[in-house]
């Protein structure tokens, strides 16, 4: 049984069919990339999985349980967390608070114990802070020490992306959905991010489903690639096969380009 099973997912917004019969699986320990031109429905797919939108038809199953009709917070409880393409950090709060809030749903103490600061609550609070530091350490010293107490609004764009990923990890989820984790990063930072995502899988034990436009990152880390176009699944499989698929090249570059041999020689989308 696959960790995440997406079957025949459909979603329309008024007249716009944003998702048509999309099915694929994610196995535990895999890194799967979803690619496709702008407006292909990649973010919509994430929103459907995480309960922001409910699908018109079709099913999403996580470890055998259906996610359809569940609230986003319940889906996090089950073990799926996401990042947002347009960054939705808690901007006026410190990084530490940003990484502590996602751990709140795991808290066993109730609100009275929290107000009274019972030993059990204090212990949990301490553990949450340790866990936060552990997750932030994936990004080296960049988000550590004094930065922990700075509000997010003073952070650089790249550091905000990193914080978002750390925040998703802090939920305790096993499956992470990363929406363009390297957007707005320079080539050097992108390479660093590629390595970090690999380490998240290898050392952190996370299964990762990601959306990316940067093909070098996708090619480097993906076990499989799923291509979406106009809400339909165009192709799925190995990165090399997918990028050389004429249909995929057509979706990205338009009809004319497929006739152009040059496009193929240059290695498709790269």
């Amino acid at each position, binding site marked *: 049984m696959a960790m995440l099973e997406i079957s025949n997912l459909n979603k329309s917004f008024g007249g716009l069919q944003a998702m048509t019969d999309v099915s694929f699986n994610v196995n535990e320990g895999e890194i799967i990339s979803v690619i496709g031109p702008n407006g292909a429905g990649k973010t919509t797919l994430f929103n459907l999985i*995480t309960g922001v939108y409910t699908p018109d038809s079709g099913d999403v199953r996580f470890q055998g349980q259906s996610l359809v009709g569940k609230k986003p917070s319940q889906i996090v409880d089950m073990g799926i967390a996401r990042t947002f393409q347009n960054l939705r950090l*808690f901007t006026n*709060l410190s990084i530490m608070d940003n990484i502590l809030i996602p751990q709140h*749903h795991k808290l066993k103490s109730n*609100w009275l114990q929290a107000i009274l600061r019972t030993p059990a609550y204090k212990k949990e609070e301490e553990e949450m802070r340790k866990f936060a530091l552990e997750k932030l350490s994936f990004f080296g010293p960049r988000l550590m020490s004094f930065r922990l107490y700075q509000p997010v609004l003073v952070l650089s764009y*790249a550091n905000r992306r990193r914080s978002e990923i750390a925040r998703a990890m802090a939920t305790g989820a096993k499956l992470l959905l990363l929406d363009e984790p390297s957007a707005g990063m320079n080539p050097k930072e992108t390479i660093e991010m590629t390595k970090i995502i690999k380490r998240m899988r290898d050392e952190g034990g996370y299964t990762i489903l990601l959306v990316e436009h940067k093909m070098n990152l996708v090619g480097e880390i993906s076990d499989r690639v799923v291509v979406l176009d106009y809400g339909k699944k165009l192709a799925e499989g190995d990165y090399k096969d997918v990028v050389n698929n004429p249909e995929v090249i057509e979706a990205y570059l338009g009809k004319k380009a497929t006739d152009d041999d040059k496009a193929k020689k240059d290695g498709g989308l790269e």
Partner: protein
Amino acid sequence: MQDTKHIVQPNRNRNILLTIFATVLVAVALLILTSLGSVKLGSALALFAIWGIATVSLNLVNGTLGILSLGHHGFMLIGGYTTALLILSDDKREKILASGRSSMTPFTVGLSIDNFFNAIGLTAFTTDETLWLRFLVAILLGGLMASVVGLIVGIPSLRLRGDYLAIVTFGFGEIIRLTASTRIFSPITNGALGFSGVPTEFGKSVWWTFAFLGITIYVISKLKYSSFGRAMEGIREDEIASEAMGVNLAYHKVLGFVVSSFFAGIAGGLWVSWLGGARLDSFLFTLTFFFLVALSVGGTGSITGVLLGTALVVFVRQYGDPLEQSYLITTWILAIGVILLLTALAIYIFRTIRRSRPKIIPAFYLFLIAGVATVVLALLAPSLGIMQGEFRGFGMRAIFLSILLIIIMVFRPDGMVGRAEFNWAWVFRERLDQPTEEERKQDAWLSNPELNRPGGAANTSDVEED
């Protein structure tokens, strides 16, 4: 890396000791003020504490949860009326029964802590000396009643967002007051007559009121700095993101709302005691308006700021009567002229401090010329024989507060202290968000152009996007 400073609050024991010391200091200051000061001062201090309870609890919803609630006066009414009904003395109850205008029944008139203690055999607690205990029970029940209503109101309405929710809370505040006067509820609330003769020794006592204020600040700040409070602040910052991070929105909103209503009920109980009676027009929307002014002036979200704002509002309310007295019309005009001149001065000072250019803007000349003209007019008017007579400044206090609010909103939109909070680390200038010498070197490594491309981590080139 596993530095304990990030896991355990540094200097925790010192801070606890300092807090205890400061509390004792406040108590001593109150002792001195109440024994030396006038009755008026004592009553103003008590009012500050009572309204402080109301604003600090309102701030939990408006500042921490980020929900604009406009119905605080309704919850205060429930706490106030419950307290008044349960604590009223026997002769007052007899008077109500004997009065032909009251619609209270013998059963509802008999609802008192006195009768309850008698019924369960605790007659020792029904003496005059133990009134304080009965008041304590009554006010806690008042708080509980308010929080139950908060729960009932909160569960359906907190699903709404933004403006809609604000309108609903405003509506509920008014509905509570209006239903209290209807025929269905007047056997309990005594309708438009209300209750008079509520003992004033608690609401007017700085000890009682400040003790409750202390408890309120303790509980609400502990809640704010707990995991639950962080979740609430997350909701304030971004609802969608908090939900995507596993925060149960409905639960935390209702929790904040119920805790806030509880303390509103307590404030209501002390408020009727301060007033010496419970009447429907002691719980008008103006009450919530004053609280909102205190929040905005002090700094929504900050307990420290909210208390500063409350002090200001209470000061204007209690000591603002000179503003509402009768003066010569020319005196009023002179005052306006002086205010205009002071505004011109303030503009000049602010632009100098902030080093804004140009230093002198047209508005400065405008205020200066208008101010001078008004002052000249006021001084010449008597000899010209115009604008004679007196004018009584009814409602001048509210106008003064509004002007104050406008000034604060222009110069400090986040209120006097913003979201900052008083704490000992701030007093000792221990700033965790500033790098130490060692960390500065590390940072130099991070931003070193040799090791990192120019611009470093701050480089946000989107070139290869799309």
